């Protein structure tokens, strides 16, 4: 007889049920390793003593972080990336949130088509967006104005694929939004603006914040579109790319580790802020 105790486990599904279960568990483990091992190596090698990292580790050092701290080229590239990301995030969050409303609320003739229109840019390959925008700026707009490639064109390129993310995230939150809350607000004397400010925005804030955080990460590590649209400046991914041509130095690992930590911190901070502001308000009321 079967050895299991629960009738569910003893039910003869397949003769190979046990084997299947085990192999799935192994596969899951392998996938997790595949996802996180490279990052683990990255972090590990950033503390590696030798100039050409590899196993076994020869020794641990903070040397590469010191190099990083005194490398003005990499710092200015990082600063450029942050500048772009901040501008992109601010514009994309505001515009994306505004666009999400007509997408969900009625009054639009073909909401499905509109939605598709905002979903497609996510699926269009980055190099197509890059080339398309490049041609548009250099040739399409040329008769009107002479657009110089630079950070503005990079921001424009990033907006093309970040705004759809914000739109979709905020729209899905709005979809589940109980319109009767707006009725209740109006009923209690709030006009449209105050309803937006006191009821709608606070309730969709988590979605806007999630969209914004996604924008930051998407923009910071964007490579292909930036590559086509940038002028003389360099963003961090572009800089690292040019450096790698001369071999991977552990300094790159160090900056990658720093970015990883900072983005983890940002996400954690965001979610903590959201929950604690609510808790704070409750405590204040008591």
């Amino acid at each position, binding site marked *: 007889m079967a050895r299991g105790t629960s009738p569910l486990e003893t039910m003869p599904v397949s003769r190979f049920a046990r084997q299947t279960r085990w192999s799935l568990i192994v596969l899951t483990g392998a996938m997790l390793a595949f996802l996180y091992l490279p990052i683990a190596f990255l972090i590990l090698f950033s503390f590696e003593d030798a100039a050409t990292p590899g196993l076994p580790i020869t020794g641990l050092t903070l040397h590469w972080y010191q190099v990083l701290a005194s490398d003005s080229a990499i710092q200015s590239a990082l600063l450029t990336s942050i500048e772009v990301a901040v501008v992109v995030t601010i514009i994309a969050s505001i515009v994306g949130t505004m666009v999400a409303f007509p997408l969900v609320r009625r009054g639009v003739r073909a909401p499905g088509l509109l939605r598709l229109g905002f979903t497609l840019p996510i699926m269009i390959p980055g190099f197509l967006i890059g080339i398309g925008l490049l041609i548009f700026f250099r040739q399409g707009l040329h008769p009107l104005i002479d657009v110089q490639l630079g950070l503005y064109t990079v921001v424009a390129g990033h907006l093309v694929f970040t705004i759809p993310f914000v739109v979709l995230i905020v729209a899905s939150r709005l979809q589940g939004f*109980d319109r009767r809350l707006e009725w*209740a607000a109006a009923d209690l*004397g709030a006009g449209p603006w105050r309803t937006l400010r*006191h009821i709608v925005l606070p309730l969709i804030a988590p979605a806007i914040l999630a969209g914004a955080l996604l924008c930051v990460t998407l923009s910071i590590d964007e490579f292909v579109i930036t590559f086509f649209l940038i002028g003389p400046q360099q963003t961090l991914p572009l800089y690292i790319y040019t450096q790698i041509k001369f071999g991977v130095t552990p300094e790159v690992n160090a900056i990658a580790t720093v970015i990883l930590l900072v983005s983890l911190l940002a996400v954690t901070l965001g979610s903590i802020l959201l929950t604690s502001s609510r808790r704070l308000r*409750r405590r204040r*009321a*008591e």
Partner: protein
Amino acid sequence: MVTNQPWPGRPADSDLAEPVPAIELRHATKRYGEAVALDDVSMVIQPGEFFCLLGPSGCGKTTTLNLIGGFIPLTSGDLLIEGHTVNDLPPHKRNVNTVFQSYALFPHMTVAENVAFGLRMEKLSKADIAQRTREYLELVGLSGLAGRLPAQMSGGQQQRVALARALAKRPAVLLLDEPLGALDLKLRKQMQTELARIHRQVGTTFVFVTHDQEEALSMATQIAIMSNGTVLQQGSPREVYDRPANRFVADFVGDTNFLAGTVRRDGGQAVFDVGSAVVDVQGDAEAGPATLMIRPEFLALRQGDATDGPRGLTARVVNVAFLGNHTRITVSTAAGEMVVVRPHGTRDSTADTQRELGEEVCVWWRTENAALIRE
């Protein structure tokens, strides 16, 4: 903006004792495309009333409330609040407040903040807001829970918050859309008493939507019975129960026995032919086809061969259901089945409750307790 008529229906020289209605609908119609949700309804709700809109699902009760609240526009007709036409006035400028069926509490605000919201919108001072919030939370018995979030409260408590939030605005009219619908029976009964008390205490006009006739009868001072977007009858609970305007009202409000037949003049006396039997009806009834309506509690039973008292119908007991404080006896007559409700505690009726199944009886009533309805 809206064209505010200065106190219409109240010319300077008219009878000043006539109060301005809290709500008045004049030929109000609401269409959704082809469908008519409200069909040429005219209705007056006096100030201080506990007004119940009663009717089956889909008859237009919520539509009526939403029109008064200003959430949906009228297709045609007029709506007046305290004598002012408010057809085009947006909800946030109307002096009415709503307790929504789903409560619609703001989930990101505490109980106190929910109640204070409407007051903040009025730009009252901080001290006033705090004071009034406390006052109305106390009114609904939630003083201790001011700091909770709606998600941390039971349905009944949320319902009270919604009530306090709406009442704190001190509106001319409070609209309540099936506020007790989501509560279990016991809590429901308790909230009915509570609502009646609050209504007496604050004196505001209540417009209360329900499809529960018992709830309407027990709480209302006025009832409007609706069906298919029209108001069939409006009156006090007693009027509506005792003198229903038509068969629908009689059927919807309370249980009723209907006997289809014909009124015939027999000498000076009007009699009613039901199948092969004849019963008496009130003397002034006109001849012709009609329906006789008798409430179950006005029916009584006696031995089949007894001849004292008014004429009755020969019947056979087909079911006896003991229901605690009363017994429900179903009898079968030549004119169809009839339901007899007998309370416990009086000697006559207690005897009736001990009838045997299949027993041959005579079901009878006093002529003044039966009403004739003509379709």
